[in-house]
């Protein structure tokens, strides 16, 4: 079977690639485009380490066929910071030591940003359920949840200047 | 003489017939020498000692086998515990 040509937008840049019909979006991001920030922890949608935003909704990129991305927009961890300026979620992850090994971190940050983009004032329970699709084995989630809640508070302050 | 106390599993694995009252009495000048003397009693001990054995000299674990034993009273030979 010949490869499929796909035109899509990744982190704001118009992009083209060739992919196998069965390649996942994650495979293409990592192996074809060199965007290795999205991780493969399971390949079955159970760990969330490959979380990206596809047309505005967060998804596991291991469960999206690369061919499906034709004409769509993809946002990955590599596009979360604006240049060298970290997004508040990234900054709070650092300040709260919300990562140990860091392997799950890109998925958590993409997911947390997706939450705060639609819910600027989540409760702890809402944060925990929203992030339930992202496995972390190092932290016990405590500092991650605190970082997300703190990032939410900071974003609210930014949005409502005194 | 230094009192050598061999803990399980090494007591039975290597030295069963040599141990009296739970101890061996040897005069090693350091822990390398002790390993040699124990090897003479039970061939095979020296090969596994670096990987599986810890020594405690007078109650303190000692990883430096050049440690002089002239003043020591007791060396305990005990299993090395691995961490994760």
């Amino acid at each position: 079977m010949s490869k499929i040509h796909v035109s899509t937008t990744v982190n704001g840049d118009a992009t083209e690639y060739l992919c196998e019909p069965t390649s996942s979006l994650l495979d293409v991001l990592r192996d074809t485009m060199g965007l290795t920030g999205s991780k493969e922890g399971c390949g079955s949608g159970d760990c969330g380490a490959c979380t990206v935003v596809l047309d505005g909704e967060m998804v596991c990129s291991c469960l999206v066929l690369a061919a499906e991305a034709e004409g769509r927009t993809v946002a990955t961890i590599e596009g979360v910071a604006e240049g060298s300026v970290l997004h508040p979620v990234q900054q709070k992850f650092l300040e709260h030591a919300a990562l140990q090994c860091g392997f799950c971190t890109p998925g958590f940050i993409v997911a947390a940003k997706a939450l705060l983009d639609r819910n600027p004032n989540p409760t702890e329970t809402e944060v925990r359920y929203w992030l339930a699709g992202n496995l972390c084995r190092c932290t016990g989630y405590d500092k991650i949840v605190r970082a997300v809640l703190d990032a939410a508070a900071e974003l609210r302050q930014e949005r409502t200047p005194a | 003489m230094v009192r050598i106390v061999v803990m399980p599993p090494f007591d039975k694995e290597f030295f069963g017939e040599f141990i009296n009252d739970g101890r061996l009495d040897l005069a090693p000048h350091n822990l390398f020498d002790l390993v040699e003397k124990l090897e003479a009693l039970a061939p095979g001990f020296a090969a596994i000692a670096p990987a599986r054995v810890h020594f405690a000299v007078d109650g303190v674990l000692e990883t430096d086998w050049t440690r002089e034993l002239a003043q020591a009273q007791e060396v305990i030979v005990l299993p090395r515990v691995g961490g994760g």
Partner: protein
Amino acid sequence: MPSTAFHAPDTVEDAVALLSADPTARPLGGGTDLIVQMRSGRLSPGAVVDLKRIEGMSGVRRDDEGFVIGAATPCTALKADAALVAAWPGVVEAANLIGSVQVRNRATMAGNLCNASPAADSVPALVAAGAVCVVAGPSGLREVPVEAVPVAPGKTSLASGEFVAEIRLPAKPAGGGDAYLRSTPRTEMDIAVVGAGVSLVLDGEGTCTSARIALGAVGPTVVLVEEAGAALVGTKLDDDALAAMSKAVQAASNPIDDKRGTVSYRKAMAGVLARRAVLIAASRAGAKA
């Protein structure tokens, strides 16, 4: 290794043609089951037919009879439709227990149904609600009750070339309420050990005039337990009626021992969850607590 073709047709007719051309071809909705099965090697379809580019296949719309949910509508999108949430909260909640948010942003109820797992969360709720599938195929469109689609674990009644194009829910009956509950060891990211969907109607006096109760993971397919519903009809959902309903539910449960639960636990939970779901449905139907 046989290679797999990828197609993204624009019309139902093209999709049917592609699926008919290769009996191993599979329709792709959210892909959260299909792609996992392909990657693990359990499934090697000759072609994957993406339904999402077909007009009308994604989204919820109203018609005279109720709600029409396109087969490629992701579960989270159901929550955005206020009318659907108001009419069938149990169905929407059930669909939004599947996997994680990431998974639900892709996963569809049609896929959940056609994967034909006895533990599918949305299916007991759909069956209880009396939902109907519109199946597209070589001979056109046909309507099938949801419970008639799965026939065994992993097997459906769909013929070659057919796929579920829509799921239709009736309008909310006056005095109606529904609910779905499941038991899982984890709070999220889990497969139902037992699931119970309930839909009922209460009259102005609080008497149950109709009830449908469906169970997941207690048999090879989701089961509609008519005796359980019948045990409630004509009652005010008093303790005796609930006990009779639970007993009927347990009698209809024929689960297996597996990695997710034991026979005895599943039977016990079917009764407990059905009773709890009945009470939630009743309160949604307007029953006084």
